[in-house]
């Protein structure tokens, strides 16, 4: 027996019971959030200043740009346009295996719509095995290095996805209207857990360099860049409303609300998705907000991450864009209409992202084939190919 479903089913019922009990309270909180979103007494400039000065150690409020409750209908998407998307998967280095290496597979999709429709789908796997590829070294201290595995491999993969996107966008015909798309956030989360030299290598020299390339391209051609998050769980806009509802002039959670019930508790348990599900009609986007992430503020420079929510048939998506798109109304509107068009063509999810995922995906069987091939190649060269007993016991099970 691996997982005892009988045992877990009781626990699932208990969990569902808890969700049911909380649903009345959530409806009440959602009404409070909606009321605050549409509060005509909110002074936008004053709230921007209040947010900027707020001390909220446990949550981050979104920055405001054009308002809180704005809703924008999409313009009609151009008939002729191209979309380029990348997505990645990896096979992490495994210390139980005979060779130290990892693999990143980048799936790319280029679709052109209009009078001459065409499509290019491909995946490019790259094996990283050189010493310089397995770790990031501190240039100022040769004894300091950081292994690329776990969450750092996720970040490395995101960097490679963006790099590939920029490389491909650079060689496309400049007269095409182009939407460049990535999956997930433009923010490289988790970077704060690593030393400065790692951030310099992956963020400054990697991700931001690729964004620079895309920004440069946007000066000479119609190019939009968007990162798409399906079913987002973030609550940064609701957090901005928490700042708005706070009776204190200077929001300081530790100072004002250590004892007693904070005023913003009436908004708890609600995230941005729930809020905009109520507020946006199909095809509409929300106002634009600024991602308050620290790493973005510290490192991203002209690529500050903005975002808006988009109502697609059955769900709310979060679309992240760099500042240089958000500041150009024409590109912002184009991004809105093209992302929506992609969702409509893809049964609710951008077709280019779904196909690039299909190109990138590495299945369990692929992983086994990959390690099998590594072992075979080592055996052919009469090199040591010992795997750990743990790994071998997983392969050959017994009773």
């Amino acid at each position: 027996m691996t997982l005892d479903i009988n045992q877990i089913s009781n626990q699932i019922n208990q969990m569902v019971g808890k969700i049911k009990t909380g649903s009345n309270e959530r409806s009440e909180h959602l009404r409070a959030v909606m009321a605050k979103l549409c509060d005509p007494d909110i002074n936008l400039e004053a709230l921007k200043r209040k947010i900027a000065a707020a001390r909220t150690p446990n949550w981050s409020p979104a920055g405001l740009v054009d308002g809180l409750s704005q809703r924008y209908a999409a313009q009609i998407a151009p008939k002729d346009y191209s979309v380029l998307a990348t997505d990645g998967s990896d096979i992490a280095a495994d210390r139980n295996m005979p060779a130290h290496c990892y693999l990143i597979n980048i799936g790319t999709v280029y679709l052109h719509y209009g009078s001459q429709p065409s499509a290019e789908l491909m995946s490019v796997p790259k094996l990283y095995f050189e010493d310089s590829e397995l770790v990031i070294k501190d240039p100022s201290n040769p004894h300091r290095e950081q292994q690329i595995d776990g969450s750092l491999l996720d970040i490395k993969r995101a960097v490679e996805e963006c790099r590939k996107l920029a490389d491909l966008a650079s060689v496309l015909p400049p007269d095409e209207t182009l939407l460049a798309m990535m999956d997930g956030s433009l923010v490289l989360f988790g970077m704060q857990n690593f030393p400065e030299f790692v951030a310099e290598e992956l963020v400054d020299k990697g991700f931001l360099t690729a964004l620079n390339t895309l920004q440069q391209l946007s000066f000479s051609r119609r190019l939009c860049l968007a990162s798409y998050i399906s079913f987002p769980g973030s609550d940064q806009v609701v957090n901005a409303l928490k700042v708005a509802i706070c009776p204190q002039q200077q929001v300081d959670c530790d100072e004002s609300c250590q004892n007693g019930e904070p005023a913003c508790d009436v908004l708890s348990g609600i995230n941005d998705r729930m809020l905009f599900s109520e507020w946006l009609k199909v095809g509409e986007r929300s106002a634009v907000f600024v991602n308050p992430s620290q790493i973005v503020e510290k490192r991203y420079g002209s690529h500050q991450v903005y975002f808006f929510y988009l109502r697609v048939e059955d769900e709310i998506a979060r679309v992240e864009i760099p500042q240089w798109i958000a500041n150009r109304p024409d590109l912002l509107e184009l991004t809105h209409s093209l992302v929506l068009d992609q969702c409509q063509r893809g049964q609710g999810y951008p077709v280019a992202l779904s196909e690039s995922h299909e190109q990138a995906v590495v299945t369990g069987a692929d992983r086994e084939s990959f390690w099998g091939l590594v072992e075979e190649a080592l055996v052919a060269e009469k090199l040591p190919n010992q795997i750990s007993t743990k790994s071998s016991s997983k392969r050959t099970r017994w009773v």
Partner: protein
Amino acid sequence: MTEQHKVGEVIEACSTDFTAQCYELYRSPALGSLVKTRFELQGTDVQDAWLYGIVYQAQTASGDPGRRPIARGKEAQDEEEIYRDNPQLMKLLKSDFSVVVVGFKEGERIYQYLPPRPARIHGLVIPCTDEEVKQFSRSFDFINLLLKSRLEIPVEELVGAALRSMAQVYEAEKHAFLVSAGKELAGLLSADYAQLKAILKGLKNDAK
């Protein structure tokens, strides 16, 4: 069928038949047409060795068996619009065709029995030229291979399609070709009048 160009590539092969994937969606050679693919004759000096086969099946489906095509045309004016609005379909759908092996060519000699080895995976599949079809159909021994084959398609249909396809290249001698083929069939199927009748009925219109 005068131009020699590859239409697909072998992706599965055994001694009696092979399956090829088309380079372009829906561009599989016609049912019953004669195609060839190069193969290796081990232990000989012969460089020019070709395996001949007759197309008996063609199909188009999703390239990934886990992803079924879905209906997309509810709002579309016509079928073309669906492909225009979803250009990725041209890459995600795959057309395959299956070929029953009916002989091989070694240098200048043509043999109408199974070759010593099957086609090779990634072998290029080329439709035969009119001249090659004429050369191959000088003998009717291949009909026996077709009649004995165990395929998903009714064998009468396949024999009829192959002979009609071959007859096209004979132009003025088309009638004579089909009469000869009919005589060969009469000999082979003397014990199965129903099957003979079914094939001849299918050839009747072409023989006029």
